[in-house]
């Protein structure tokens, strides 16, 4: 498998705080890489840098063998990187369908003028967009809600909508920040299945999540961060048995039992 995303020596400071410290890892084509770690470990910060929302303080991110440091944030989607957000960033006053259609922005190109004049090309594009956005909504199970105002959807549905929005852009790398937060067991399982399907279709996923059920079921490899630094990398089984990871993140079985 070839490398899709390569992160080298990545660091990020906020004021005096080093949130991410010399992290490197790779995401290969068509795999699910999970990024886990305690709260404040720097996972979201890594994701923000990889998606171009904030610039790194040091280090390099290469996507498709191209350096991304000079690429403006809005170019990322075009290159094939889209994402969801830990604190939902939905367009509340638009319908669910429109939300997803925004995701297709880079896939369309009608100009301001032709949109305003509603020229034929713009309208054809619009129809294609609607069809494709609708198809993705069906896929995440929101087909029946496509005409709803996004603002009135419950949290869990919005997460699904964000995923659809990120997927219509046909990314090659999908970044997910705690997609299962606030979902119950059944919902999480459903979501896991969907991610696997996405992977089958060739899109790689970089997944940040605290839900170990999900991680252990679907991740191909896991990178563990603690206090900004990488402390482990490996397959789910390796990580589960890594004493450093257990101490910093998972907790021991005894703790579990004493409460169970």
């Amino acid at each position, binding site marked *: 498998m070839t490398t899709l995303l390569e992160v080298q020596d990545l660091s990020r400071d*906020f004021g005096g*705080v080093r949130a991410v410290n010399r992290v490197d890892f790779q995401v290969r084509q068509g795999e699910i890489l999970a990024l*886990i*770690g*305690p*709260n*404040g*470990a720097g996972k979201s910060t890594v994701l923000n840098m990889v998606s171009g929302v904030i610039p790194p303080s040091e280090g390099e991110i290469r996507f498709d063998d191209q350096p991304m440091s000079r690429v403006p944030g809005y170019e990322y989607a075009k290159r094939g990187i889209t994402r969801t957000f*830990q604190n939902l960033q939905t367009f509340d006053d638009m319908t669910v369908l429109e939300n997803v259609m925004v995701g297709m922005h880079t896939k369309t190109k009608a100009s301001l003028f032709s949109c305003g004049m509603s020229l034929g090309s713009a309208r054809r594009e619009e129809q294609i967009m609607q069809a494709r956005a609708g198809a993705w909504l069906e896929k995440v199970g929101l087909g029946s809600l496509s005409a709803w105002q996004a603002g*009135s959807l*419950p*949290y*869990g*549905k919005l997460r699904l909508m964000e995923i659809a929005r990120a997927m219509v852009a046909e990314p090659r790398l999908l970044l997910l920040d*705690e997609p299962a*937060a*606030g*979902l*119950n*067991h*059944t*919902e999480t*399982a459903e979501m896991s299945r969907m991610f696997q399907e996405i992977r089958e279709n060739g899109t790689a996923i970089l997944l940040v999540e*605290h839900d*170990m*059920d999900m*991680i*252990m*079921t679907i991740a191909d490899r896991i990178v563990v961060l603690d206090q900004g630094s990488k402390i482990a990398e490996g397959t789910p089984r390796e990580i589960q048995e890594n004493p450093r990871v257990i101490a*910093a*993140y*998972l*907790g021991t*079985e005894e*703790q*579990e039992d004493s*409460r*169970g």
Partner: protein
Amino acid sequence: MGKAILRVESMRARYGPVEVLHGIDLKVNEGEIVSLLGSNGAGKTTLLNCICGLHGAKDGKVWLKDQEITRVPAELVVTRGMAHVPERRQIFSTLTVEDNLWLGASHRMPKTSKREIAKEMATVYERFPILAERKWQLGGTLSGGQQQMLAIGRALLSRPQLLLLDEPSLGLAPLIAKEILAIVQEIRSQWGTTVLLVEQNARAALAISDRAYVLSTGTVMLEGTAEMIKSDPRVQSAYLGHSHEAV
């Protein structure tokens, strides 16, 4: 079991024209830990907000101890002994940790002396040593878990008899999520605080609860002791499943 500290009668709540709670009855006895389970959008948060007075569009009745508080606004409910740790923590992000804690006690201020509260604050710091370490840091720069501790610490300083916790482990690493629930238990045993707990992690929540309610699309689907709920087949399939320890 003591007598009821909280009673909710046929609570209905709306967002705009849409009703999301369709008549909920609920009771929490003194000294209990009661869990409120339910899938996404079932109305758990809305119910807690109705109880504490944050949500205005509602019908039904709420009693705290023997007083009706249905129409008492949130800022006054606190003074009657109920504290609410809302969803997503809601700490004061641009204030220091210390100020956040002071604010928790602020409504008791003229009556209880500053020195008294400082003493209580010391016990909170004892319980959450990391907060003592970060006293002067701005709340917003804490990590998720630390923020959660701050939110609970802050609520404790209002000396509640009844504590409402809305998904305290949302977005927390497994280790900390466990710790938080342990702390809930400790609080109850040390101070006798009654707790109404909303959690997605049903297994963990039921483990520390005496009783539980299961909400489904705005109605109570099931209620009973934790044991009963745990063994209910519907709950098992929908909310408990297998946990990662079993993988």
